[in-house]
């Protein structure tokens, strides 16, 4: 097996372990993060802090190095403009997140568990991805991420 594939497999496993440890596979725990007051759930915010403890220094080191581990150039996206498409998309995403308590990470991790809420979410999530990719947007920013 190619090294890159093996690495992707390991990274995928790591992601699922992290999601399980953070206990964010229960939609109620994510919705709880958006409930201010006594019922506020600390898991989502704690998870974000944890990701940056690793992601921030790694990104910084890679930037300083200027190349990947395979000595290839970095391909960070260079879109700078905060445009209407970004804002409308982000608001739409947030509405969905607040309705279901699932975002793509927890959803795809639970893809094979067969829970009816996950199946419903993923079916329309995939349709949404495809629909949005087929629509031509005014700003002409290609979807790369």
């Amino acid at each position, binding site marked *: 097996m190619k090294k890159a594939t093996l690495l992707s497999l390991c990274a995928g496993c790591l992601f699922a372990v992290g*999601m399980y440890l953070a206990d964010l596979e229960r939609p109620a725990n994510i919705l709880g993060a958006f409930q201010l007051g006594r019922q506020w759930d600390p898991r989502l915010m704690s998870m974000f802090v944890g990701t940056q403890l690793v992601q921030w220094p790694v990104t910084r080191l890679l*930037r300083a190095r200027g190349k990947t581990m395979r000595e290839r150039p970095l391909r960070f996206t260079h879109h700078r403009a905060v445009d209407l498409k970004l804002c409308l998309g982000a608001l739409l995403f947030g509405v969905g997140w607040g309705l279901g308590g699932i975002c793509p990470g927890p959803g795809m991790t639970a893809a094979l568990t067969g*829970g009816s809420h996950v199946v419903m979410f993923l079916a329309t999530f995939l349709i949404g991805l495809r629909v949005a990719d087929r629509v031509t947007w005014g700003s002409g920013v290609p*979807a790369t991420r």
Partner: protein
Amino acid sequence: MDIAIVQRAVLGGALIGASFSLRLAYEGRSEGISGMTAGLWQGTWRERVERGAFLCAMALAGLAFWLFDPDAFVNTTGRPRWIFALAGFCVGTGARMANGCTSGHGVLGIARHSLRSLVALLLYMAAASAVVTLYPPGGAL
């Protein structure tokens, strides 16, 4: 607030960061879960295989955790299925319009100090908080 829950979540987050860091360091491309999923239909075959490998390993590991601890995957929101269908469509469409999801903007984008990502993450949370305030879990629509 239970400190053990916070510690577990921080550790879990660190592993998620390590997962994206591995791909970022090797591929040099910051791509979250929605980007990888949409990327199954885009790009070179080599890129598609890498994305597919990541997503398959992730779903299989998720299945293993579900077999060993199904309670961690339970839906206790009391919300009907059609709400989840609506949620999925909003999340899928929104993620592509915004060029990223919680992982792409919230983890990778924030780490590279992208203004777009910060704006996206704040709007995700503002909209989600508004929805949860109007429609609390366990409550009627």
